[in-house]
């Protein structure tokens, strides 16, 4: 009984201090996103491309009757070292402040539990060409550095519009 209680307490304590992240890869780089934002993770969905859309907009998919945009995260973040994209990418469907959006990633790894305290502010150095404004924080894990992305920033309207214009000109 006592043991049980202590486990419960542990869980509570853990909940308070731990972040649960869904880890994913783009190239060699490992990223994380708060699990609460993740609506689902899908593969093998036909993507309908949008003519004349910015390159980072991969297209739209039919998600159970809703048409949602899919953004190629690699292109959006301009991550260097673009090796050919994998043939069978994953789509991470996130709810970013009410806007359901799919993000194309190379693979989804696992759910990570990370203590809040382990998250550090983004470093000044640019990781693989990734600008630090999209990074919420980084944290060290066994296999290296995990980058927490700021998806609100990634979907910023004005910026997307500008990118669209730049691409057109």
């Amino acid at each position, binding site marked *: 009984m006592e043991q049980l209680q202590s486990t419960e307490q542990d869980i509570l304590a853990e909940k308070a201090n731990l972040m649960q992240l869904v880890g994913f890869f783009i190239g060699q780089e490992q990223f994380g996103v708060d699990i609460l934002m993740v609506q689902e993770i899908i593969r093998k969905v*036909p993507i*309908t491309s*949008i*003519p*004349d*859309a910015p390159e980072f*907009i991969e297209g*739209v*998919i*039919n998600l*159970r*009757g*809703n*048409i*949602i*945009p899919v953004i190629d995260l690699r292109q959006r973040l301009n991550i260097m070292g673009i090796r050919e994209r994998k043939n069978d990418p994953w789509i991470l469907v996130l709810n970013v402040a009410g*806007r359901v*959006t799919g993000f194309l990633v190379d693979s989804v790894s696992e759910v990570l539990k990370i203590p809040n305290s382990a998250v550090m502010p983004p470093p000044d150095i640019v990781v693989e060409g990734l600008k630090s404004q999209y990074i919420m924080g980084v944290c060290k894990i066994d296999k290296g550095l995990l980058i927490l992305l700021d998806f609100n920033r990634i979907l910023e*309207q004005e910026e*997307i*519009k500008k990118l*669209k214009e730049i691409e*057109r000109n």
Partner: protein
Amino acid sequence: MYDPSLLQDFITESEEHLEEMENYLLRLEGDTGNREILNDIFRCIHTIKGAAEFVGLEKISDFAHRLENLLDILRQGSGQLQTQIIDLLIAARDRLLKLVNDLEVHNEEQTEIKDLLERVDDWIGQLDPEAAETVPEAKAAEPPDVSTDFLDEEEPEIADLTAQGTSEDPDLQETTAEGEAVAGDDRPSNGQQLPTGKPSAMSADHRQPEDDPPAFDGTIPDLAGEEFDDEDNDRELFEIFLQLIKERVEEIIAESDELDDGSDPVASCDRTAESLRVLQSSANYMGYEKLWQFFSVWLAAVNDCRERALGGAAVSSGSMRPFITRVVAHFPRIHFDGAAATAVSPEPPDSQPPQPPPDPTDPAAADGDDPAATGSDQMLAEKLENAFDLFEPTAASDQGVSLFEGVLNTAGSGEQTLQTQSPPSDTGNEQLPAADMQIDAPAASATTAVSAPADEADDDSEEGLADAQPGETEAAAGEKEAIDESVELQPEAEPDLQQIKPGRKNMRVDTEKIDALMNQVGELVVSRSWFSQLVSEMRGLHQELKETTSLDQRELKQVKGLAMKINEATSVLGRVVNDLQDGVMKIRMLPISQLFNRYPRLVRDLVRNTGKNVRLEIKGESTELDKMIIEQMSDPLIHIIRNAVDHGIETVADRKRLGKPEEGTLQLVAYHESNHVVIEIVDDGRGIDPELIRAAAIRRDFIPREDLERMAPKELMGLIMKPGFSTAREVTHTSGRGVGMDVVKKNIEKLNGTIEVDSKIGVETRLRIKIPLTLAIISALLVNVGAKSFAIPLTSVEETLRIHRDQISTVEGFEVIELRNRTLPLLQLSAMFDIETTPSPDQRAYVVIVSTGMRRVGLLVDTLIGQEEVVIKPLADYIQEDSAFSGATILGDGKISLILDVDGLVNLSVRKHTMSRAGSLLFEAVEPDPEPNPDQTGPDRPTTEMTMQ
């Protein structure tokens, strides 16, 4: 001062009522002697007032109150109403609407109403001479004041006032209106309790101020509250108390009979007073403050009576009766001997629980020895009776209604009371049982409504109740006939009541909820196809098992059976899903009457002082369409109707000369046509002369002469909707049509609708608007380009051609084709969208000619798939904005097809081709082409196939 949470409800409801009121007013205008309509209008105002008080809006409630006064006088009169009054009422309605709009925009009542208030008062003054003499006289003036005072719980004053009233205070009588105004002023301060109390108190005010009872009634329900609290008191004590009341009241009844005999009024009064004192003290003992108050007031009245009797004046029991009635009604459990005879007016069983705790006090009986009955008393009594008589027939439908609202409210608040209440003993009210039963049902619901706003102010609401009470008496009189109606008309101030109003079964739902539901249904549809897929997989499995394994028949049969069962279940699911889908779609649909009902007023205003006479006929108003579309059709229709009345229909004199009926007719007709709703606006005016249009077009050099020569009349009609044309003076001057018609057309096109004009000179003009049932679904032409499919809204498709690639030539870097001697720019979708295509071996391709606004262009596609109804789904804003697409749709196979936005497409092509001047000119040059009359574009347009070498 108001409760913001209720504001939104108030706004929507008031708007509805004002709309309704407008309709009534317009009807009244055509039938100025109709009291029924006046009653309807009164009801609207009354409801608004009640709600405004409820929310705490002073201006509106005050204004509405005055209007009520005016209407009340009007409906008591007879004969025709003067047009000025109707105008005033209409102006007042508009002002109320403005106030309501103020609330919506600024959250406060900003608009001034003084001027109208003055006008209303003027009229009341003018019409009132009789009212001032007869009506107010018939009503002793005290009740309004008393009732308000009761609200404020100023006992001493109550007593005073009552006394005054009984003594026929001239001031009070003269100033009924004032008294009411006072009541009005007090109201705001009473905020929340008012909704319940006021309606009835109100009616009491100006209807029958004669009865003091309202005041006392007021006390009684409060008592109910008290009793409730004391419920755990000694039962025995309570029984004794009741017994005491019975005895004493019976004595008083006897005394008052004696009073009428007139033998020794002063003694009678004294005996009555004595009894009352006993009652008063026992009420005090029991802790029934309100009851004590009631008896105190009564006592004051009796003493007053005695004074007069002493002075030698004649006294009657008239002033006593209402008290008796009240008390009798208040204790339905007690069988009062002689009560039936006494009751001046029928009383509904009040909603008080007769379970007050017992009282051991058994005070001695009292013997009065005073003279009674003064002349004034007698008069008062008569008036009382007259008033009640008056009340029954006239007020039945209306007054009763409003009063009944009060009853309902009261009953609601005191619901528990109601339930515990024993059936009314013979309290002298034959109507009681009926009324009681009626109250019961709505009461429950009313409870929620009342308790919600009042919950923090429990005491207050009790007060409110108290005030509502007076209504009951009167309601009882009138309500028998009015019951059905009144249930329907229950106070609309409380949103909670919406659902249970039998007359109106609507409820308001947030559109977001419906959209969410819609999406869920969409998912269900997908699940259904998933199931269908599972069925076929199951069959496949069965087949496979049969062929590859050595299972015997019996085992296989199980698999087969299961497959069949799943199949059945799936088809059942499918049916339900279909129904559900239809049902959800229908939720968004509203009858078009919501749109059409806005126009009678418009027509009225337009016709005024023009020497024209126009009758608006509305047909098919129950045709349903999407609410969004209804909203967006409003302005275009206003425009069209204005045109028809201003320019189409001739003046009475002209019509006479032409041998037409004097009264012009304007028809608004709506009906379904497959997936569209057609709205026709037909006037029997002078019509449009195509020759005049032609002449104007030539004069303005709008279109090449030779084209004009060729054009059919119907095409010429279409010209009036061309942007440049609409402002042409010549046309407006002669045929009168066309001002702003391009805007109308644009608005309708925005809804994926079409508009056509047809006219016979001197006979009629007919505008035919065809719009889709819902914005969410459009008819589209599906085309293939390479492996991709696109949907082109059918409303922008003019025609389709099949061409040979050789026909395509290039002008300034733009591909064009020659079509009927005109140059048509071409857009190759495959090139624009970077889609790989393999040209068909026969070098043929399809061209879809699309137009929007001023552009006309051919889209080169690989194949035409066909026409389909598609559901528009928006794309993410950053994709859709400034793109060639207006959305996307999901096809039957689950694939996504993008919906082309022709304007965006042209813009895109311009951008893509580092636009040369010539190129842009090319596009612009298309503009004035009158050839494809856009009015004839429609889903049913035939497809031309052109084969050229």
